[in-house]
């Protein structure tokens, strides 16, 4: 029984570290997303071994069911441009920053290890209730003590959805860089002299928006 739980922990830990390595060191973002999926699944397994059954279910639903799928949708929407080519500009500064962070992080891990070694044998963990980490306990706490942050998180998600739609949709008739401008290395310049009376004033100036859309080679069809 003890050996089984130890084997479970180490296999989940190995898979989690492999998933994190896959996220960081894959060339293809699809493989990074698959590494993230592996990490999420093994962290859900570790949650189960820590008596957090409801959190394991939430982890599977939210991360594996929504976040990874959203990443995959965006990667497939971007197509082959999602894979960035490998040039070496600025590689030394990036390697310096990453190396410094890694050294500091592993030094912190060493401090944790030495602190644990000085304390002698670790204290045995107490036995949890049968209701610990279950959905009943979570519901009782979420709707009594954690009610205010729970409602605030629903407001946060609402605002995030509205913001995501507003940012991803963009303005109608927005000018983007065309292919020839990209090849000649031109930088982004604002749309040619259209009198915007406000940031979102495209309803009031429909004719001007149409004129911009016809001259500025939009890369997407207007929705309306």
């Amino acid at each position, binding site marked *: 029984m003890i050996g089984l739980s130890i084997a479970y922990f180490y296999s989940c*830990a190995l898979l*989690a*570290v492999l998933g*994190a390595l896959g*996220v*960081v060191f894959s060339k293809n*973002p699809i493989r*990074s*997303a698959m590494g*993230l999926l592996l*990490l*999420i699944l093994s*962290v859900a397994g570790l949650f189960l071994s820590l008596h*957090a059954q*409801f*959190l394991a279910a939430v982890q599977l639903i*939210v991360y594996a069911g929504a*976040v990874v799928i*959203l*990443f995959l949708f*965006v990667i497939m929407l*971007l197509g082959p*441009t*999602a*894979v*960035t080519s490998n040039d070496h500009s600025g590689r030394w500064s*990036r390697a310096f*920053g*990453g190396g410094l*962070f*890694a050294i500091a*992080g*592993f030094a912190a*891990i060493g401090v*944790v*290890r030495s602190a644990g070694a000085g304390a002698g044998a*670790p204290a045995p*963990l107490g036995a*949890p*209730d049968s209701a*610990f980490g279950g959905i009943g*306990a*979570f519901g*009782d*706490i979420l*709707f*009594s003590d954690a009610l205010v*942050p729970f409602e605030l*998180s629903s407001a*946060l*998600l609402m605002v*995030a959805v509205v913001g*995501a739609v507003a*940012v*991803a949709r*963009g303005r109608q008739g927005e000018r*983007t*860089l065309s292919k020839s401008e990209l090849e000649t290395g031109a930088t*982004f310049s604002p749309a040619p002299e259209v009198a915007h009376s406000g940031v979102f004033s495209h309803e009031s100036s429909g004719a001007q928006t149409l004129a911009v859309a016809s001259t500025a080679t939009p*890369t997407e069809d207007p929705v309306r």
Partner: protein
Amino acid sequence: MIPVGHYIILSSVIFVLGGLGFLVRRNVLVALMSIDVMLNAVNLALVAFNRAHLRAGRLQAYPGQSHTGQIFAFFVIAVEAAEVAVGLAIVLSLFRLTRTVRSDEAHLLRN
């Protein structure tokens, strides 16, 4: 039973890997995924500490053992979902503007 220090060390290894990916990788999508990796590591540490420090709760609605770390991890998951939605929208907007997802091509505000 696995001592809680093992979970903490595993969580810090995963956190360091995620931070390394965020600093080193230039693909914006991979940087967002590295943020997810770091948040997962934090969640693991929170849940492990909650398991290690079981105490009687002081709530009237739930008199059982305290769930503070797990509740915190729950809210971290909610915030993280919002962050991914907004972040991917920004990535799409950046791609529409510059036709690339490299983070060093995003210099539209540079003089």
